[in-house]
């Protein structure tokens, strides 16, 4: 029979349409919210969902896994007096590892002696070249550059980010990637403890 395929296809849409209302009512009956809540978004993103599964973007966002990466940012430690201390030492490993070569670093120098100081004076990343590969974050030996979850960065001009725009506090990093942050903190503490033990050992050695 002609047109059977069309009817079959339309019935799928028809079923989805009614499933949406059935789901909405059953969620409302059980007192849960299907829209604009984490539970609701998770359900609608899962394979068990029936009916509509649109994530209504500006109002609600798809829940991304921790390892989701968009653009890089620089981590800074918040000092007690409110000063920002970037973890970056301007070693330039990230800019060498960067495949599309979109990182530009200027190392600061001592104003008196002119010797290089291990902090960045300028740090630029051309976000319109960045390909979100995450190599900079992988190669950084100081955990200073990390990949962000924030993707709402489109603008009317070229997105070249300077140091001011790139710097984000360590607390933000802990919030975005809690598992990674805790792992790194533990590793750092273990390293410091080992160093202290070794220092104690060498201090004790001459007397023995």
């Amino acid at each position, binding site marked *: 029979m002609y047109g059977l395929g069309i009817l079959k296809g339309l019935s799928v849409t028809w079923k989805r349409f009614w499933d949406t209302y059935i789901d909405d009512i059953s969620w409302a009956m059980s007192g849960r919210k299907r829209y604009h809540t984490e539970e609701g978004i998770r359900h609608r993103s899962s394979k068990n969902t029936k009916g*509509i*599964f*649109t*994530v*209504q*973007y*500006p109002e609600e*966002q*798809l829940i991304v896994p921790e390892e989701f990466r*968009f*653009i890089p940012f620089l981590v800074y430690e918040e000092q007690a007096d409110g000063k920002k201390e970037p973890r970056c030492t301007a070693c330039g490993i990230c800019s060498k590892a960067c*495949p*599309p*070569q979109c990182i530009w670093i200027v190392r600061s120098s001592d104003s008196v002696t002119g010797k290089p100081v291990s902090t960045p004076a300028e740090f630029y990343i*051309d*976000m*319109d*070249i*960045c*390909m*979100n*590969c995450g190599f900079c974050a992988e190669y950084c030996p100081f955990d200073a550059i990390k990949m962000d979850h924030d*993707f*709402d*960065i*489109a*603008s*009317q*001009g*070229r*997105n070249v980010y300077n140091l001011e725009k790139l710097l984000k506090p360590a607390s933000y990093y802990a919030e975005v990637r809690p598992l990674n942050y805790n792992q790194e903190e533990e590793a750092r503490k273990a390293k410091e403890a080992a160093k202290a033990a070794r220092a104690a050992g060498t201090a004790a050695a001459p007397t023995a």
Partner: protein
Amino acid sequence: MDNEKLSLPNYDIPEDMQDVVAITTLDRLYNWGRRSSVWPLMFGLACCAIEMIAAQTARYDMARFGMEVMRPTPRQADMMLVSGTVTKKMLPVIVRLYNQMPEPKYVVAMGACASGGGPFKEGYNVVAGIDKFLPVDIYIPGCPPTPQALIAGMIKLQEKIDKESIKKVRWYNKEKKDGNYVPMPILGPDLIDVRRNAEIRDISAKAAVLKESA
């Protein structure tokens, strides 16, 4: 934009007339009409196009912004979504399509390649950013931008349309005659000159012979 924002009168309407009368500016009405029916031109260049397609599916549903009607002809399109790597071979076609689009027209550079050349920015065959040839309105970073990032960029475009004024937009500017026409890229400096292909092949063949004999 909802009705409250559309009729933001600077005039005092008497209270008993407020449900009957709405005062707005021509600009606001004009922009309101256009912002919610931005029809993209249907073409995809590279991997960004896959994300563009994903943004049109039920999960993200660009139809919520009135952008679901992908027109396969430039005559009916309002927005050119340059989704992907623009090669030098493709560039004349894109510029021609842009010239064929009726005003008002917008260009959105989606992804790293279209906005700045991306990893191919110093390549021999890729245009390092479509903004060298076309007036880009919105740059969306990402490689590729996720569908949500694309929608975020589209919202930025709507915000830009909201702020436009009929008096100032470039397509109604009488002083700039043909102000919207983008000259076609020239063979040679802008593009690969295919007429020189035989010559280049000769040179490389001679170099190979010299290398063998050495």
